[in-house]
C-alpha cells in the first residue's frame, strides 16, 4: 500500500499520548516557527536516509522519559518541542550527520555575528 513517508512518520507518533505531537482541529499545531523547522528537519533527514524513523522515535521517547524522571509531572516548563529538539540533536550527532560541538560553534557564530551585521 502506497503511503507518503510524511504520513507514515506522523502517524507512527500517534499511538502514545506522550509521544504524539501537539495538534488542533485535525492539524499539527505549532506555537513557534522553530518548532515547525525542527519537526520538518527531523522528518526530512529520515526521509533522505540519514537515520531510521524508528531511531528518531526511540530517541524522542527516551528524551521524554528522561525529562519525566527529572521533573515534576506538573512542571510548567514541560515543552514537547524542546524534547523534540534535544532528541534531534542527539540523533544527528549519533548518526554522524553533524559532529559533536559543531552545532554549538554554528550557534555561537550566529549569536555573535548578528549584532555586527545590523
Amino acid at each position, binding site marked *: *500500500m*502506497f*503511503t*507518503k513517508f*510524511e*504520513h507514515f512518520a*506522523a*502517524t507512527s507518533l*500517534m*499511538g*502514545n*499520548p506522550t509521544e*504524539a505531537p501537539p*495538534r488542533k*482541529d*485535525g*492539524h*499539527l499545531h505549532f506555537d*513557534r*516557527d*522553530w518548532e*515547525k*523547522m*525542527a*519537526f*520538518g*528537519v527531523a*522528518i*526530512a*533527514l529520515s*526521509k*533522505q536516509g*540519514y537515520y531510521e524513523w524508528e531511531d528518531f522515535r526511540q530517541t524522542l521517547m527516551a528524551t521524554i522519559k528522561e525529562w519525566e524522571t527529572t521533573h515534576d509531572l506538573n512542571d*510548567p*516548563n514541560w515543552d514537547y*518541542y*524542546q524534547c523534540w*529538539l534535544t532528541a*534531534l*540533536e542527539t540523533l*544527528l550527532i549519533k548518526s554522524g*550527520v*553533524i559532529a559533536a560541538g*559543531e*552545532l554549538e560553534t*554554528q*550557534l555561537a*557564530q*550566529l*549569536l555573535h555575528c548578528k549584532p555586527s551585521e545590523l
Partner: protein
Amino acid sequence: MPSNYPGFKYGTDREAVSAAKVKALESLLIEKGIITGDTVNNILGYFETEMGPFNGAKLVARAWADPDFKARLLADCNAACEELDFPQGMSGAEGEHMRIVENTPEVHNIIVCTLCSCYPWPTLGLPPYWFKDPTFRARVVREPRKVLSEFGVELDDSVEVRVWDSSAQIRWWVLPMRPEGTDGMSEAELAALLTPEAMMGVATVEV
C-alpha cells in the same frame, strides 16, 4: 511585564536559545548540502495541505450539494472518495474500509475507538488528544447524551444516539446535518463550515 516567577526567565531564555539553535542547525545542514532552503517547506506543505480534515470536509460538502453523491458515499465511502481528486493513497492505508453514517433529525451518530490506530486520518486529519482516552470512550458508551451535552450538543429526548466503535476493520465517521441558512452556498463555502468534531459526531455544524 516583569515577573517574579523564577520559571519565567528560564522560559524566555530557553525560548531564544531554541529558536537560535534551530536556525543554526538549518544553516549548518544547508552548508553541508544535506537540505536546501525548500526541503523543510515541502515537508510542512504536505501536512498543511494534504493531512488534515479537508478531505472529509470536501466529501461532506459534496454530499450536501449532491443527493446522488450522498447515496454513493453512504453506500461505499472508499469508492466515493475516488470520485474526488484526492492525493494518491488517500483511500488506502489508514483510510482503508471507511464507513460514513448520516446524522438526521431522528438519529445522532458518534464515533469512538478502542484501539489506538483506527481513526479515519485521510478524511478527518489528526485525532484530538481526548479521542483515545479510555475514559472518553467508556463514557460515550455509557452516557452518550451527557458527554454530548458537555461538548455543547443538546439533543431532544426523541433523538436516538448511536455509538460506532471504530476498529482496524472499519473506521467510522459521521455525515453531519446540513445547517439551516446555507442554501445559496458553494461546496467550498460549505466545506469551510465543517470541523473534525462535527465529523466525529461531538459537534453540530454552525453557520
